[in-house]
């Protein structure tokens, strides 16, 4: 294995993993420190950051072709309709 291959195969994934562990530590600390505001929002925001790291780097969406990115976003768009239509009713009662 060349130095570049080692960097691509081992070092890069380990860096992403370190970032994921740091975010996990942050979300636990934020949840258990008393009195902090917006705990749900913070927890979901950190989860979103972790999901983006996994999707863009581990799942390699960052370098994917356009058609693959459209397929990846399609599920979120369709699920978005589900949420928008539900909240349009639920939050305006």
């Amino acid at each position, binding site marked *: 294995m060349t130095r570049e291959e080692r960097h691509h195969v081992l070092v890069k994934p*380990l860096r*992403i993993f370190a970032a994921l562990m740091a975010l996990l530590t942050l979300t636990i600390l934020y949840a258990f420190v008393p009195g902090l505001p917006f705990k749900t929002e913070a927890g979901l925001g950190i989860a979103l950051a972790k999901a983006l790291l996994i999707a863009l780097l581990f*799942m390699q969406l960052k370098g994917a072709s356009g058609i693959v990115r459209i397929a990846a976003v399609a*599920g979120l768009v369709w*699920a978005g309709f589900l*949420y928008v239509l539900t909240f349009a009713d639920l939050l305006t009662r």
Partner: protein
Amino acid sequence: MTDTALQKPWADAERQRVATQFGVWMFLATETLFFGGIFLFYTVSRIENSAGFMAGARHTDVWFGSINTVVLLTSSLTMAIAERAVRIGAVPLARAMYFATIALGLCFVTVKGFEYWKDVSEHLLPGRDFPIAQTGASEFWAFYWTVTVVHAIHLTIGLGIVARMLLIPRDQLAARWTTAEGTALYWHLVDVVWVFLYPLLYLAGR
């Protein structure tokens, strides 16, 4: 870069690669809708009966949930290394990482089993002996059991898919790098779902 085992009807490796990624991502889009519906139940229940729902959420065991989060994120690391190792033809490393991924997946299921045992011993099953009287608490636990069992089923299917990579003869594994990519996409999605479940199940109401 290694040679590619082409499958019909693809004329070249790049087309096969895009087709594999496109196909798996379309499947993952349906999974997003599937889990999106389950998450919508959580959202509506939590808005409608906030106090009781959070009272129920405080009974989950954050230790089990946190340990399993570390286990699953680590399995994503081993899967990512395995996929990249296949791509450069480092077959022994790839196989070692597939074994590690399976071991971590089994570890997740085992921890989940201990957690379920504790939950059942505390009667945290919606029904007659459910111990929390507040309205909304049983809805949280209905969500908990539904979504964690569904997730565990997905993970178990993932174990089979990863095991399939180990059944490919060693001298053919490097040429199956598009298969390795599709396998990795599925495994990482199981991880992404858990990443969102963790704060909703184990950190809510703390």
